[in-house]
């Protein structure tokens, strides 16, 4: 009986030793720092020289590399400054997806006294994946020219934002 008690005591010590077990794992962690997106404009949206028509006319410049100009009304599209779509260059981390967007759908151009409204048009594929080199985006627009619009040089500005998706 004495021997059995001794064995029991040993057994209890053993159990208390076994009751504590531990295991470890190695967790992994990753992060990807992107090169900041940069967007810059190196060409303006130009509607060129226009003679107002007998009624309000829309003058359209397409949102692409050619920047073709046309009108739906009686305004005369005459030779002068070459019409172009605005061009924006986007750089960033190759392989990352991003989207360009107009900050506002319209903008106002002015000769300092009177204004005209331009409805902006974003070019093809505003959502893309950076392929490593510069991505080029175009913005065209529709300029509404009232029949008796005052002569002058009209200017304005608009904003295009680029964000990673």
């Amino acid at each position: 009986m004495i021997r059995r008690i001794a064995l029991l005591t040993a057994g209890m010590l053993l159990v208390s030793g076994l009751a504590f077990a531990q295991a470890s794992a190695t967790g992994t962690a990753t992060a990807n720092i992107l090169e900041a997106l940069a967007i810059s404009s190196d060409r303006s949206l130009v509607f060129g020289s226009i003679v107002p028509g007998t009624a309000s006319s829309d003058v359209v410049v397409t949102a692409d590399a050619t920047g073709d100009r046309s009108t739906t009304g009686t305004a005369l599209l005459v030779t002068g400054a070459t019409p172009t779509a605005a061009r924006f260059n986007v750089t960033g981390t190759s392989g990352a997806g991003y989207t360009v967007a107009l900050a506002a759908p319209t903008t106002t151009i002015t000769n300092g006294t009177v204004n005209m409204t331009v409805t902006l048009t974003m070019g093809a594929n505003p959502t893309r994946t950076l392929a490593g080199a510069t991505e080029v985006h175009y913005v065209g627009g529709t300029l509404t020219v009232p029949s008796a619009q005052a002569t002058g040089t009209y200017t304005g500005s608009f904003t295009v934002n680029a964000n990673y998706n």
Partner: protein
Amino acid sequence: MTSRNLIAAIFLVAANALSGAGFPEEKGFVTGFAVDGIEISQNQPLTFGQIIAGWTAGTVTITPEGLRAVSGVVQAPAAGFGPSMFTVTITGNGNPNYTITMPPSTTLNGPGGASMLVDSFQRTATAGKVDPRTREETLNVGATLHIKAGQTAGAYSGTYPITVHTGN
């Protein structure tokens, strides 16, 4: 376990076998042999996702629940991110409770010797008890990543230890 305890255990089993059912209390000891194994393995890494460093320092925190919070001027595009997910398994039929030890911090290394600190590790608040039937529990771990001003662009990675303990 000391060698002395191991020898005692062998004697104990032998005594039990010799004496048949005479020592019901000894069965507990023998059962106790198989109780206390615990395992942990990672199924999914802690992923902070895609981040744009700002002009000043910032942080990105991933919570164990999988939410992401950004501070400072760091922008974080909505790409894949998420906490570490571990499976904790306790073998046997004993106590399903366990405790968890996480590191204070670790470092993620990136291109050209660039690095970022990760700290404030946090885990699933309710973790620490395996399911009594499956003997498993999923344990999520999040943390806070510190991004320096103008942090070098590129892929960063690192490791951290996590330890689980059984016992009362």
